[in-house]
């Protein structure tokens, strides 16, 4: 009786152990992976925060640039003047439904704006003295746009390592045909104003992504790990 009791106790112990052991193992692995996911999420947040800060800086610089531009263009750039419909100026809105598409849209927009900045710089070189601050600020904003594009690209690669950055849908950037000087001025102003609006949209988008992409990534990682 005692032996039976002992055997039963041992069997029960073994059953309990066999039941608990995998559970414990799963918990241990899960906790390890949760830690890893949490760390990855933190990296995502940091990267996003850095991008957001650079976007805000670029936004401030673009506001200053518009002021300098208006001052350089005789100081009478009315709202009407800059808001005139100008063809071939990029759309300030970010397109796409999925986060990956929207981040890619930001990147391609920045690439497009850089081409426009180059054209505006060329045009203004003929209209400004070499010492004009406008040329310097245009260079700075263009360089900032390049840096922001690189950061967005890096962020995209970290989020979606298996998704290549898509090429712009419309092919190479379309620049406006030769224009007269007045049209060049309007075009330049429109490019700067649109860029500022675009950066505002980017800033908003990044804030949205912060609560969406990084968290989802963590959840996705956890889910994938549990599946395994």
């Amino acid at each position: 009786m005692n032996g039976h009791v002992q055997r039963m106790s041992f069997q029960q112990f073994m059953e309990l152990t066999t039941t608990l052991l995998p559970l414990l193992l799963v918990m241990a692995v899960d906790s390890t992976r949760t830690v890893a996911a949490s760390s990855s999420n933190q990296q995502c947040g940091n990267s996003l925060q850095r991008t957001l800060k650079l976007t805000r800086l670029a936004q401030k610089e673009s506001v200053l640039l518009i002021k300098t531009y208006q001052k350089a263009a005789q100081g009478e750039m009315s709202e009407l003047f800059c808001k005139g419909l100008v063809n071939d100026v990029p759309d300030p809105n970010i397109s796409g439904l999925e986060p990956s598409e929207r981040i890619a849209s930001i990147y391609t927009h920045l690439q497009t704006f850089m081409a426009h900045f180059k054209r505006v710089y060329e045009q203004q070189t003929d209209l400004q003295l070499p010492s004009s601050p406008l040329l310097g600020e245009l260079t700075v904003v263009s360089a900032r746009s390049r840096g922001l594009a690189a950061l967005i690209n890096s962020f995209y690669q970290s989020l979606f390592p298996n998704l290549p950055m898509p090429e712009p849908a419309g092919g190479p950037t379309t620049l406006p045909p030769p224009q007269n000087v007045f049209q060049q001025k309007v075009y330049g102003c429109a490019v700067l104003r649109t860029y500022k609006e675009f950066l505002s949209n980017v800033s908003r988008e990044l804030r949205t992504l912060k609560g969406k992409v990084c968290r989802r990534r963590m959840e996705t990682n956890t889910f994938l790990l549990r599946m395994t």
Partner: protein
Amino acid sequence: MKSESVTRSIMIPFILLSLFCHSSQDGNTGEHVVLLCGPKNLTLKSWDQTIQATWEDDPSCSAVKEELVYELLVLVRDQQVHHDLVTVTPEQIGLSHLWTWTSHRALECDSPSVLLSVRYRNYTSPRRQEGTLPGMTNSSDPEVYPRDPVFQVGSRATFCCVLPAGGTFTDMYLVGYNRSEGNITKINNQTYSLSLVLNQPSSPSGTDVKCEATIHQQPTDNGVTAFIGYPPDDRELQCETRDLESVECQWTVGRDTHLPTQYQLVGSAYECFQRTCRGKEDVSTGERSWKLRAHNELGTVELTDSADLMTRVHMLAPESVTGSTVNHRDARLKWSWKVQGYKDLNLTCEVNLSHAGPQKPNSGVGLDSTVLMNLIPNWSYNVTVRCRTTQHPWKWSSWSSTFNFHTKGDVPDALDVWMKMKDNEILIIWKILLEKQSHGHVLDYTVTWSNIRGTEQHNTTTVTHNHVTLRLDTTQQYVVNVTARNVNGSSSPSTIITPSSSSAGLNPTGVRGSRMAGGGGGFNVSWSSSPAASCGYIVDWCPSSSPSTVTWIKVPQTNVFLKNLREGQRYSVSISACTRGAALLLETREGYVQEQRIQGDLFRALRSKQTGSEVELSWDQIPLTEQTAFIQGYVLEWSDRDQQDNNTAVHNVSTDEPTSTSLTASDLKTSSYTFTVKARTALGECCSKQLIVHVNSGTDNWIRTVVISLAAVFSVLTLVSVVCCRQWACIKQKVYPPIPRPLLTDTWLRSTGERSLHVDQGPSEVDIMDAPQLLRKPGAQVNQPPPNLPPPLRSLPAPAGLPSSPFRGAFQNLSYDLMMQTEDQQPPEGHTAEYPAPTPPLDTAQEEPGSHMTCDLTYILVPQPVLCKFTPLMN
């Protein structure tokens, strides 16, 4: 029938044609040709505001052996806006012809047509051709023309704005111009023009011309950018060589064209940047020429220059300037040349020395060094060098970079010494050496003096300031030497000989003094020449209020202008003759550069003193520092204050003595007077000060004296009385001390008391009331006998056999209750009954020592010391 009709229908036109041809041949064959001559293939082109028409002659025109005249009409909306003729010579017939015309308005605004016809002799060909410039394409926005035009400042420009169909014109203007400066004209429903004079040059980004309109109820605008400026007007091209290997051409740029302007050196590969063109060239080729072309949208200018470059050497600045040797008063400079070719040229170099300015240039072939002379010891110099060619001086090189050096130190320069005499003292004073004279920090000055005859030893003193006062025997002359010493040694001595009192010397006593007037910030002093002056004259001056701050100057002539002096400051000037021995004082002067009105309170301590009917007002001596003008005298005015009317007589008294310190008013009555004292100067009276004085009569003074004396005596007496009263006891003790009373035995006391009581039995009621109050107070102590005495009787029962007395009822035993009461211890009046009569026996232990009691012989046992306290009962 049918064949007839066909034949007829063929024949009739043929006959008519034959007739027509026949008639033509009968007339003129040339005219027949002209009918066919005319323009063909008319094509129109336009750019900016220019129309270009090209056409050809019809082949039939080749038959014309004379000039063809083409007539061109420019029509805008069927209205002729321009007419022109083009003559084609017979040789040109058959070629293509060209005609251009520039409209004052953008062609897009008008869509002009060109009508072309030809004539020769008096015949005008019916053949014409018409062409119309293509109008502007339909646009959704207002369009402004001309596009990106260039105008000269001051020209009149016309812009037009073409609206899309359905558009409504709002406004048209140039940015930066007043709206009133432009004239807007409606050309048609869709076209408006703006005409104005462009009187401002545009910025590099141009001047915008804007057209605002409403299209489909949406405000919109569009525009063009106009560039307004000037044609180039550069001038003075000059080409030169700097390195003997290349050429630099520069020119004077004219006014800002406000337009992009290109420069080109024609026929050369020189690179032009800003206002310089540069290129490699062999400079030894002799004379050659250059042509510069400056061009912008509004014009072109060409500048020329020709020269032999060897006469146009503009050297580069010397390099590495350094001092190879630097001494006390000279230094040697060296430098090098960047261009080796300079070493073969004859060069002239100029050195610019700080504090000394440019030095005399030196010349030499390949000159690369120079010596600087007459430098100041212990002095810092900055030096720069520039050079140019000697044979063909063209331009100086720019100055080299600065080289700094410091000369070595040396002994100080000799001092400039002077002296001033006052009484028996001689002030020896010398000018402090300037930095460029001291050649180092001056440590001290040594003054040595001795009798001029050398009969005394040399006396020496060393000081660190710039003067010393000597007390010498003024009957003799002394030789005084002064030297300055720095770390490098002592200066050479400066000698001055003091005059003796026997000679005129520098003692101002007996020397003519005068006043002088200044002007122009100083004094122009001139004096008569003196035969004694063998080495010129010495003029010294100082503010009269501070003679120790004397300054002097040595001049060879008999006049000098003393400048940089203050106005309103009195200066003393002395003129002395410089002799081989002691200086000889010629004259002294005193004056102001410009007298100024004396400000402030001059009569600060004004006071009065009455003597009888006179009042003397006096004041302190007025210091020179407060006298900003010569005081010529003083005025004292007074008036009677008790006479209120306006006709109050004002009396005055004055003095012309500037040193006076008092004035006296006389014949004054007993009244109150207002005295006013003033100073008189060349600028008028000033510094008025008033004093009110009450003049009293002599009687009043006597009465016042008596009253004051009486009051004083009364006051003294009162004071003495008060003191005596308050200290009466002391005084009495001192003056009239109490006589000790003998001690009485009991029997004597009893018998005496009985007698006393017996004697006192018959007083009246008044007496009873006046009797001293006999009080018993608990704790009161009676007078104690001396310890060596037997205790006195304390209880003395009344003898039974004694007759009754009215006292016995009230005072049963007075010995226990008797005490002295001071006034403040007495009971209030009417409350006597509240103090009960003493009741025997009284315990002696309860009595305090020192208690007072009245001096009733019956009860006094031992004499007590008198207290210094006033007590009415003692009386």
